[in-house]
């Protein structure tokens, strides 16, 4: 018997990591200029969100989470198998790992969203685990 997924499957997306985007991120974050085709490592995070098939706001709301209530980014864990390269388009694969409701000193109760997002082309490049906390709806 086929297993029923616990959370909705997310459509794949893509992220175009252009040299111009890398230049902009380096300028905005105070990084040294690029000396080869390796991109700034923050693109493991930027490409993960920027390459989702919908904005994080829409994704959150589609999962019943209160984006308008003011989500808080709590933690990210990134694994970089190899450096991301400029002038490449990466396939972005995301899944909802968990949504948990927990008591919260700040919100009363909070919904903890855990997303896992990978960037790859023919081979894996990066994986990120994101933990975002939302105030629980109707529990302000």
């Amino acid at each position, binding site marked *: 018997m086929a297993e029923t997924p616990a959370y909705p499957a997310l459509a794949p997306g893509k992220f175009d990591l252009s040299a111009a*985007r890398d230049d902009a991120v380096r300028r905005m974050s105070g990084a040294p200029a690029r000396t080869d085709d390796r991109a700034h490592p923050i693109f493991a995070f930027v490409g993960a969100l920027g390459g989702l098939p919908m904005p994080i706001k829409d994704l959150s709301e589609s999962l019943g989470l209160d984006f308008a209530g003011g989500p808080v980014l709590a933690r990210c864990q990134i694994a970089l198998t190899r450096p991301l390269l400029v002038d490449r388009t990466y396939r972005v694969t995301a899944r909802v790992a968990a949504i948990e409701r927990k008591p919260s000193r700040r919100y009363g109760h909070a919904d903890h969203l855990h997303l896992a997002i990978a960037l790859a082309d023919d081979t894996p490049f990066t994986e990120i685990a994101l933990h975002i906390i939302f105030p629980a709806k109707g529990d302000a």
Partner: protein
Amino acid sequence: MTQSDTPFGPVSGPDMADWCTLLNDDNQIHLTREAAQAAGFGPNRVNPGPANLAYLMSALMQDDPDTVFASVDARFIGNVLEDDHLIARTDGSEATLLRDGTPVVTATFTFGEPE
């Protein structure tokens, strides 16, 4: 490796809009002062979290341009606002982003071998 402090700032409000474009994030607290004020952050826009982590990564890259990142574990424990002046403190595999001396992001890194 020894401790190193890299100053950063003032944090640019207009840059926040560019970060949001890259992140496909239209959360208005990053984009308008009115939204930041209404959400209780005061009169300045709120920097997107990934930008704060980027400051730490860039500081490590300034310390060693050949740095190859293998993993990052970052915790976001405070907000960075438009016009803030920050310190990115790095010490080996540990890094902390400080706002007025208070940590707002802490991160642990592992590094790979340069190719």
